[in-house]
């Protein structure tokens, strides 16, 4: 591999650790799923109960470490950009290989899934009959495969990056004339994107007031997608104050006061609560009102933050970009 920077090595080594833990958790989960019987008083059941603590600890460890590691991963991509000709930020690195974009998507999805698992576990432990145990381990088995896919893709991505091949930088990637997947949305006129964005928030809010968890969740899915598109197509240009600069990664750099972290943080947390509420409610029938509340709060934060940039720009300069 020609890309052996210390940061990449660190990420891969941690991946090895994660895989080991994930596999242990996987096999224990299978065993638990097969033999679990809450009503049983056999010694097998007691040892399963003990093992379920181990699985839970391992999964919690993975989740709470994956969170900061994701940020570190983005950081590392930004650094790797320095050795790849043409790439000026993480966006170039992500697009240097066919895997890059998928690694990102998988990492995000897995963060959501792990988070939901931790919530499930929390509800499970609250009731003396551990009603969701079997369920949560089945859920983990599903997550496991997605997690393995993520690791495999990550390794392939890092091995495939060839420092001798010139890649496009974010300037061209997110240009409307390029033919990448994202660009097909970017050609839409701004008023459509913006009405979709604000519209989906309003719809989501209506479902929130109606306490319809299912519709609220689906609305969150839309909101997440549209929010990201709107960010790339429209709002990011107001952060950079440049109509042609659409890069979603440069927002995370110090030049822009790391505002990207606030954007993404609020959006991901908000939609996590929104989408997660449905899963939790569906699987456990627990009350998820607090989830809805947090979701709306964070999603609103995001909306206000990105809108502020555009509005302040307009107020200062009298024109839209």
């Amino acid at each position, binding site marked *: 591999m020609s890309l052996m920077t210390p940061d990449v090595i660190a990420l891969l080594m941690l991946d090895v650790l994660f895989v080991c833990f994930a596999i242990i958790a996987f096999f224990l989960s299978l065993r638990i799923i097969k033999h679990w019987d809450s*009503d049983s*008083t056999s010694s097998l059941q*007691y040892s399963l*109960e003990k093992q379920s*603590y181990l699985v839970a600890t391992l999964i919690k460890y993975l989740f709470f470490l994956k969170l900061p590691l994701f940020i570190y991963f983005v950081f590392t991509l930004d650094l790797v950009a320095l050795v790849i000709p043409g790439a000026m930020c993480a966006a170039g690195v992500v697009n240097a290989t066919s895997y890059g974009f998928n690694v990102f998507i998988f990492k995000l999805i897995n963060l959501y899934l792990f988070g939901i698992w931790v919530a499930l576990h929390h509800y499970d*432990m609250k009731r*003396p009959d*551990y009603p969701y145990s079997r369920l949560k381990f089945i859920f983990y088995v599903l997550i496991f495969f997605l997690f393995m896919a993520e690791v495999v893709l990550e390794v392939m991505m890092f091995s495939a990056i060839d420092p001798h091949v010139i890649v496009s930088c974010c300037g061209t990637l997110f240009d409307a004339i390029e033919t990448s997947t994202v660009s097909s949305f970017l050609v839409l006129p701004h008023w459509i994107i913006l009405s979709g964005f604000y519209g989906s928030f309003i719809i989501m809010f209506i479902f929130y007031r109606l306490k319809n968890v299912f519709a609220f969740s689906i609305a969150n899915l839309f909101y997440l997608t549209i929010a990201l598109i709107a960010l790339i197509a429209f709002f990011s240009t107001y952060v950079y104050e440049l109509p042609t600069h659409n890069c979603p990664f440069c927002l995370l750099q110090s030049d822009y006061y790391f505002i990207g972290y606030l954007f993404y943080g609020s959006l991901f947390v908000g939609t996590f609560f929104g989408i997660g509420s449905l899963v939790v409610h569906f699987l456990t029938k627990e009350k998820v009102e607090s989830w809805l509340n947090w979701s709306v709060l964070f999603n609103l934060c995001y909306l206000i933050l990105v809108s502020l940039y555009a509005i302040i720009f307009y107020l200062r300069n009298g024109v839209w970009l």
Partner: protein
Amino acid sequence: MIEIKKISKIFHQHQANEMVALKDVSLSIQPGELIILKGASGSGKSTLLTLIAALSKPTKGEVIVNEKRVSKMPDNFSALYRREQIGFVFQKFNLIPSLTVYENVITPLLPADIDPHLIDEKACQVLEQFSIMHKKNVKVANLSGGEQQRVAISRALINSPAIILADEPTANLDAFLTENFLAFIQQMKAEGRTIIIATHDPVFFDLDFADREVALKNGQIT
């Protein structure tokens, strides 16, 4: 209200050293009763106490306390039950020798994330009650048998449990301290707590303030 329904406890089941500690024991205890469990060592009385405290699980049968199936509770619930409802005075005291008196006494309260001031209040109250306050900062390993027992009792009572279990409480005590212990039991009874004492010390037999005596022999009630 403690209900013990057809409890059996077999150690090392299906192995060469299999031992039947309890066999088909059934017992009903009303709130506020003082029960003396009589029997020689090996008769199963200690095992019965541990089952009531949900420290171990029965091989067969159930223990139901205040309508909760304590014998079937998973760990985090049985721990909470022990913490809040049971005060167990062990035969060997089971204090942590490297900790001081004060530290030992507050250990049941630590996981609950209670305000340190409240913990201090409760600790001091119970240490005063059993006259061990003056040795608050002494390591338990440096105390006499009687002092250690007072610490063990303090710890058992710090959470004001409804049920007190004592396993051979007077085994290491002289006559004077035994008297003290009896007085303590009497006071607990007056406070309306349910008390079960497993003992073969005759001083407990025919006590006027005890409600019942239950005799165990070879794992069964006689």
